[in-house]
């Protein structure tokens, strides 16, 4: 037994400079069921478009407030790059929403409630300057670190989800998901490093993980249900847990097992995001992504 407490151990070689990439996606040819014959997996993944525009705008909003607390030059540069990337993600997913509406599936009833969640419930609130305001800022920074654990998990999954290619998924949608996923993998350590730098308390990390996880499960199951029940091409469709497990086994969604395994990973005292995922794979995808290279897909 060592006397020093276990601490997060980053994998040193993984650091690269982060920069927002200009992207362009043309949605004209993307069908409603962009994963042919699998509306359940399509809509489960589509929930991303409901959550990310509001959620990532909120990340940017919170991180702009935390910049003055950063005392490390390299971390500040990372956070600034992160902010730019997240702003682009929010805008790119936001563009899918009017396309869904054009296809007869208006997402506004759901997104207006997500907007309330991020703008009001998780917004700045009217707190007095000082302790309360600082506490709430740190709480949100920790929440973002926990959420980013899952975005990195999903990013890594989608980069390796060959089953989506085999089933003929729409190339533009796949490119959006993989561009976003790759940038999530690329910047997967930033939110965690920032949290460790400005606070780092284990209790806060565990507590906010529980909140984030519960919220994600709630938002995701309601989102999939919303899409399935309002799909104009499937009047009698319903979402069920059985479909979720089946898609996980087939490889069109992350498996339940892999998701369960990611829980103790984040709660481990020696966890660091650089221990998982591959920056090399992410950067290789970004170099070849049509959307991130001048929008050849448009």
């Amino acid at each position, binding site marked *: 037994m060592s006397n020093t407490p276990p601490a997060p151990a980053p994998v040193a070689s993984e650091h690269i400079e982060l920069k*927002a990439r200009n992207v362009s996606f043309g949605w004209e040819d993307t069908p409603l069921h962009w994963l042919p014959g699998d509306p359940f997996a399509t809509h489960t993944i589509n929930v991303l478009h409901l959550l990310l525009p*509001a959620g990532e705008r909120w990340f940017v909003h919170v991180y702009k407030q935390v910049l003055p607390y950063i005392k490390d030059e390299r971390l500040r540069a990372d956070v600034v790059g992160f902010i730019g990337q997240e702003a682009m993600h929010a805008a790119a997913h936001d563009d899918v929403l009017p396309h869904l509406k054009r296809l007869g599936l208006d997402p*506004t009833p759901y*997104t207006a409630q*997500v907007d309330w969640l991020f703008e009001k419930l998780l917004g700045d609130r009217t707190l007095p300057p000082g302790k309360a305001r600082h506490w709430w800022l740190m709480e949100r920074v920790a929440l973002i670190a926990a959420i980013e654990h899952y975005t990195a998990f999903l990013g890594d999954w989608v980069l390796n989800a060959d089953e989506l290619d085999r089933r003929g998924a729409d190339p533009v949608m796949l490119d959006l998901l993989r561009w976003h996923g790759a940038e999530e993998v690329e910047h997967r350590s930033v939110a965690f490093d920032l949290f460790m730098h400005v606070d780092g308390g284990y209790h806060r990390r565990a507590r906010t993980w529980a909140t984030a996880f519960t919220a994600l499960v709630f938002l995701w199951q309601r989102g999939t249900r919303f899409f399935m*029940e309002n799909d104009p091409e499937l009047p009698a469709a319903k979402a069920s847990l059985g479909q979720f497990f089946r898609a996980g086994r087939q490889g069109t969604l992350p498996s339940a097992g892999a998701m369960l395994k990611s829980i103790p990973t984040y709660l481990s005292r020696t966890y660091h995001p650089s221990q998982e995922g591959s920056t090399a794979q992410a950067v290789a995808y970004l170099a070849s992504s049509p959307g991130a290279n001048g929008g050849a897909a448009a």
Partner: protein
Amino acid sequence: MSRALKLAAVAGVALLTRRALKGRIARSPLWPLPALETPVSGHSPRRWLPALIVSRAEPAQGVLLLTLASPELPPWTPGAHVDVQLPSGLIRQYSLCGDPADAGRYTIAIRLVEDGRGGSREAHAQLVEGAELPVRPPRNRFPLVPSPSYAFVAGGIGITPVLPMLRAAEAAGAEWTLLYGGRSRSSMPFLAELEAYGPRVTVTAQDEAGLPDLTPLTGAAPGTLVYCCGPEPLMEAVEAAAAPHAPVHLERFTATAPTTGASHPFTVELHRSGRTIEVGRDESTLTAVRRELPDTPYSCAQGFCGTCQHRVLAGEVDHRDTLLTDQEREDSMLLCVSRARTDHLVLDL
């Protein structure tokens, strides 16, 4: 009560609760969360809406009248204008001059300015029927306030926001008059439609009768609202002529000074930190600001991500991005690409 009865009661309550919950969630997908009143996601004012030019006409010399159509065009009110993206990427603002009840259609009129910044020349040369013309959701900073009486004054192409206003005033049964001035009758659009209103409309062509006579404004009845859109000298004259009890609403053409394209040095005052910095000819505003305030966030440095958007407290900005909306441009700028039009800017930094 027997056990079976208790069980049946519990099962019944559970079933009813489930049904009630299902109904709630069907109506409100994230129940019990409320919805944000003005939804943000999917409704970005920055999004370009693809619209098609369905008709092109020249209702007067040097005036191009375009009708755009798309089922996605949001509703608007008289006085509204839109950002339009020309094929070269230039962004220009034009007032909507059609009928707000005509859903899915916008009408704009563009005056050719030979010595202007190039937007109108490009529009006249390249915007043909059948072409696509992206527009942003409309915005109104010249709204028509309900009133029993209006005095409208329009100079030249400034007639465009006024046209839907007087139709609305007429429909509401309000008293109204229009003074409409222009260089010559052949260059003034919509004369035929306006003359149908009879004596309410006074048309003054400069080559026949000089500048419009503004004395009727001095004698306007109390409670009359004055609306004016036109060249700067006309608006100044209207402000001077209007009776003190007649509030004046003005619509300025957005660009008041031409962009030269070249970069000149200027100074930036950082209001909150109380420092003043020099921005050289060859460096961006962002580079100069970051010399003093290295924490200033930025990312792409090319004007597309919006990370370096900052509030401008004073000074005129030479906006060189394609991201910000007209509304955002009124009080903010992207430090990475935009510069000062004048010699001095004051930023809230």
